[in-house]
């Protein structure tokens, strides 16, 4: 693909010193939030740092994890909870990796089958412009009625047990009193198969990143009932996952990569670049979707119902602004709180410290020390304040982690999650 005209202003490539690798191999899953990595390659930000960033498409998060562990990748487009799970040693090949840079925010949504949504409308009189919490409450009413009628619970899909999608879907349901391990069946469906699974009736809803939600809506099988900003605007999404032994052998390459990604993230956040970005992402080697659809998504314009209803969501994708790349320790800890809440890991004070170690704000700060960037004053903050509220109305103060976890009414004890198959 030819780089757009914006590359002309880039300086000559810098040389990476010594024996360090110039080539950086990065695995990714085809989703819009690979934008920062793609821009780093296609616009030339990586080359300007003297790096040859090679993007390698893969089909599963398990592969991303394993190919990172077995040195086929040096870094990867990774679900933020994967890094946390990897340092906690949970999952089936928990090889530790760390996240020194977040690849932006946004993109997730929850889509229910049209049949299920029309049931919610009929039962609760939804007109279509209700907020995400009202939709969740309507879903609860339908689930309760179906149970009373002796019907099986709905089956909901997400993409990976350690994913923002899993925790956001559960958080949304629980905010309305739906217990995700008792009232519904949670399963995994790979993102490209979600719309088909919904169409075939194999699942009744899913939470996944873009563009798969509006693909389901525009093919007439799904209805978007909540988006990530409805649940928690600054909820962590993908991160740059790094293999520790690669970082140790190539410290300068890692720093240069972060500088390149920072520049790429700024570029992606500039609305004037969205048309170019959409064309880049549309390639079969990246996301493989129509550029027009991608451009609409980048602008936060979502078709939410096959009847044509739209929602305009400012900041649906944020690639750089509002410290979107900063690896907040408080966000690693929030992810940990959800892992504990749903019984994936037992809560102990030393576990929490390990979970936080997956995020490396110290590396972020060191790499960008020379850049014109305003750093946050601390590595951790109280989450869910002002315009960044959680859907359940609570705030997350990492200093009060025990109380935050203890106050969840709906939760699952470790080892007791149901066998929902």
């Amino acid at each position: 693909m030819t780089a757009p005209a914006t590359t002309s202003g880039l300086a000559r490539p810098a040389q990476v010193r010594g024996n360090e690798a110039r080539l950086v191999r990065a695995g990714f899953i085809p989703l819009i939030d690979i934008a920062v990595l793609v821009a780093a390659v296609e616009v030339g930000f990586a080359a300007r740092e003297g790096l040859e960033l090679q993007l390698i498409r893969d089909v599963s998060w398990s592969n991303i994890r394993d190919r990172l562990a077995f040195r086929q990748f040096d870094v990867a487009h990774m679900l933020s909870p994967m890094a946390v799970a990897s340092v906690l040693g949970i999952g089936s090949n928990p090889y530790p990796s760390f996240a020194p840079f977040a690849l932006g925010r946004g993109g997730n949504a929850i889509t229910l089958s049209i049949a299920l949504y029309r049931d919610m409308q009929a039962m609760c009189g939804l007109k279509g412009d209700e907020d995400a919490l009202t939709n969740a409450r309507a879903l609860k009413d339908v689930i309760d009625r179906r149970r009373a009628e002796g019907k099986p619970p709905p089956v909901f899909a997400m993409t990976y047990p350690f994913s923002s999608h899993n925790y956001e879907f559960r958080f949304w349901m629980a905010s309305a009193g739906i217990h995700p391990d008792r009232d519904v069946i949670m399963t995994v469906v790979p993102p490209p198969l979600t719309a088909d699974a919904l169409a075939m009736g194999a699942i009744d809803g899913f939470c996944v990143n873009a563009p798969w939600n509006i693909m389901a809506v525009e093919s007439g099988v799904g209805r978007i009932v909540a988006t990530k900003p409805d649940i928690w605007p600054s909820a962590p999404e993908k991160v740059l996952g790094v293999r520790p032994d690669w970082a140790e052998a190539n410290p300068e390459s890692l720093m240069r990569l972060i500088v390149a990604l920072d520049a790429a993230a700024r570029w992606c956040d500039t609305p004037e670049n969205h048309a170019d970005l959409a064309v880049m992402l549309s390639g079969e080697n990246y996301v493989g979707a129509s550029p027009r659809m991608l451009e609409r998504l980048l602008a936060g314009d979502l078709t939410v119902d096959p009847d044509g209803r739209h929602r305009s969501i400012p900041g649906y994708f944020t690639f750089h602004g509002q410290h979107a790349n900063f690896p907040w320790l408080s966000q690693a800890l929030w992810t940990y709180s959800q892992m504990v809440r749903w019984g994936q890991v037992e809560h102990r004070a030393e576990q929490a410290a390990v979970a936080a170690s997956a995020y490396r704000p110290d590396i972020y700060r060191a790499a960008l020390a020379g850049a014109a960037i305003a750093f946050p004053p601390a590595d951790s903050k109280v989450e869910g304040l002002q315009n960044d509220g959680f859907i359940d109305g609570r705030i997350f103060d990492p200093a009060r982690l025990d109380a935050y976890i203890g106050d969840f009414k709906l939760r699952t004890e470790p080892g007791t999650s149901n066998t929902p198959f």
Partner: protein
Amino acid sequence: MAPPFLRVAVIDENALRAAILVEGLRAAGHTEIEVIASTASLLRRLTEIDPDVIIIDLQNPSRDVLEQMFQVSRVVSRPVAMFVDQSDGDMIQAAVDAGVSAYIVDGLRMERVKPIVDMAVSRFNAFERLQRELDTAKSQLEERKIIERAKGILMKSRGLGEEEAYALMRQTAMNEKRRMADIARSVVTAAALLGQ
């Protein structure tokens, strides 16, 4: 006394590759092998088979589905990824390179599983070679066909003999430093555009 046979589940949407692997495992004396081609009923099938070893190709997105099952399920005995036991680095490297992944019931000794994984690796590699040869043969055939069509078009529109038309394309390809099949493709496209 020989150890009891291991039950092997092969998850592969590619029926040909699965067949090649199953045939190899049978020849090596493993009799209890089940192939799961569709991922729709993955857990039900795995529960029925209750395998000691699960072989799945790395290109199968259902690996993430397995991951979730192992998180929540008490039905299937807890399998672990073969990658967890990193004692045999060479074998794991070979498996990753070949695109094979295996899950092994926890506690099963690696020596017993190794021949199965080795077999999967060699059969996957053989299948890959076969596929490459097939692809090459197919594209060669297609190129021959397109060159024939372009030749026909040139003969008709420019009144050339067969050899002259062929020589013209070859010369053009040499001049433009392109492959003859590419020149032929341009001729066919142009003819279609011009309605010939």
